[in-house]
């Protein structure tokens, strides 16, 4: 029973990690940029959900219909104004730029919203479905897992079937060749960054009803997203999805069978072991970045 409970909790909370990881991976795949502002974009999603709930009285999950387009636009503009300038530059320039943008976002949030953690309490914030066998499934986690699955499926279809999606994949596979084939790679980059931002904000909004909202809350998720991306294979959307679930389950199992204090250690030991045997990550292509 304990095992099953740990597995279910792990998979459900892994869903949100996966969503955050996919956003980061997509940006890396298409633009070859490690986005260190990813956690802060997640934080913005949390605040959007919080204010939609407190000011407009919209349920945080319903508010996604608002948060997704707004954050996509924000990401799109961010790319057009800042990120595209460093696309062909060395990695350290890109890292400095994204860290800088992240710092500006988190410190602006500190000034505007103060460092008081905000608690978003919905009617279902602490409710659970209890099965006859004694298994308890968190309602907010289950809802967010379903939403994550739908979004991932839509994203997958978009990338596989639509012409823009194909152009994104082509840019991700070979930027120069894609450009020679007449694809507007600059636009693709902006779209990819917009989608990445929207996914980060969605992950933030999904976690908001069960977590607390704080200007620096994104930082712990940044490291997690990065670990997930590398574990799944940088640039691989499927890899990030699977990576997220794996991290969720491993954390949960480690907390159950070893110690809560040691769960991060177990995650990183697993992470290093995978990198040792598959340096390209679980789903990464050999010889890739």
């Amino acid at each position, binding site marked *: 029973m304990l095992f099953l409970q*740990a597995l279910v909790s792990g998979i459900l909370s892994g869903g949100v990690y996966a969503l955050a990881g996919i956003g980061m991976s997509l940006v890396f795949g298409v633009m070859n940029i490690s986005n260190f502002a990813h956690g802060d974009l997640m934080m913005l999603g949390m605040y959007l959900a919080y204010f939609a709930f407190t000011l407009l009285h919209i349920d945080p999950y319903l508010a996604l219909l608002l948060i997704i387009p707004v954050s996509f636009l924000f990401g799109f503009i961010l790319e057009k104004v800042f990120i595209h300038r460093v696309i062909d530059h060395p990695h350290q320039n890109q890292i400095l730029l994204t860290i800088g943008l992240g710092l500006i976002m988190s410190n602006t949030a500190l000034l505007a919203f103060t460092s008081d953690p905000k608690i978003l309490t919905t009617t279902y914030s602490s409710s659970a479905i209890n099965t006859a066998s004694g298994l308890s499934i968190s309602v907010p986690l289950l809802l967010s897992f379903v939403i994550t699955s739908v979004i991932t499926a839509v994203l997958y279809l978009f990338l596989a079937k639509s012409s823009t999606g194909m152009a994104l994949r082509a840019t991700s596979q070979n930027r120069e060749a894609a450009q020679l084939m007449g694809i507007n790679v600059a636009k693709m980059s902006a779209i990819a960054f917009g989608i990445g931002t929207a996914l980060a904000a969605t992950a933030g909004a999904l976690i908001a009803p069960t977590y607390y909202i704080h200007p620096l809350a994104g930082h712990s998720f940044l490291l997690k997203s990065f670990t997930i991306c590398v574990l799944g294979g940088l640039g691989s959307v499927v890899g990030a999805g699977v990576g997220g679930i794996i991290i969720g389950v491993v954390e949960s199992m480690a907390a159950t069978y070893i110690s809560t204090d040691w769960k991060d250690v177990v995650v990183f030991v697993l992470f290093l072991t995978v990198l040792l045997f598959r340096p390209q990550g679980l789903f990464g292509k050999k010889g890739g970045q």
Partner: protein
Amino acid sequence: MKKLLLSLATAVLLALPLAGEAAPLKIGFINSITGKEAQIGENLTNGAALAIEDLRSKGVQVDFVREDDGGDPKNALAAYEKLVTRDGVIGVVGPYTSGCANVVASRADQYQVPLLVPAAAKEEITRNGYKNVFRLNAPADVYSRVLLSAVAPYKPKTIAYVYAATDFGVSTVKTAQVNAASMGLKEVANEKYQQGQPDYRATLSKVKAANPDLVFLVSYDADAILLMRQAKEIGLAPKAFLGAGAGYTTAQFAQQKEISNLVISATQWTDDVNWPGAANFAKRYQAKFAKEPSYHAACAYEAVRIMVDTAAKTRTAAKLRAGLKAGSWNGIMGPVKFADYSGFTNQNNHPMLVQQLQNGKTETVYPAQFSKKRLVYPFKR
């Protein structure tokens, strides 16, 4: 000659206003104004502000220099050093967290400027024989002792610990284990967690599987709400949840009635305790800041009042130390006296209280001489 006289006269004139006016009384205050502990820190800021207001209205002129440590011990130390070397304060109140207070305490004797710790619980702070370190609040072992004595009449048999991997968490649980063992309680789970994680469900499921009578919790701020939410989710319902102060005593936690009802917590102060001025302090605090004061606010108020009052009479750091050591006070924190006992130095032997959240209201339930309501046991949702 004329020139010399003129310059002498000017010098005398310039010196006169200085001689007539004593140097302003300077006291420092270190607190977590920003950072993870900022929410509780705000209570200390407000409590101190109210104390300064009261002192000024009584005609005590004081230059009160505030510093922020962001909850980080190295910032706290830098703040203390700045206060004593650059600002020239003769006494310092603070810092809030155990981690910060412990580091600053270790340097107080080097600078010979008295430090009055208002609310940090780590035992070592007053256990190292530092001459310049005073503490108003009760140390960590009292948290667990008072909590366990409150539930002792109901004869619980097993206990589980869930606590933050911080100085406060670790030291409180360490003393709780000693107290629990002497009561014959069997430890069935011991879970230390890193702060700020989104998911404690696995940890709490493990605790639930161990089926303890008592769950002893130590958390700051929002973690307390997160833990209790997820405890409700997975259906963890022991006979009692014992929260060791901090996150379990805040107004924000009390507002979350669905999850906080009947949670028991140790506290340094409540607004319905019969110490002189306690109820009035709560009323004035509420009126001024539109929030209920936590015990941290009362600790900060009393610490600042004692520090400034004593400093106004003594005027130098050395005399201030002697004044704090010799004095005794009776205010909103009850009787205060900095004494040396069972390994502690300059420690106020503060009687802690046990409170229980009953329908969103904080009620004092133990010890009997300070309380009006009875403890509700066992816990039920």
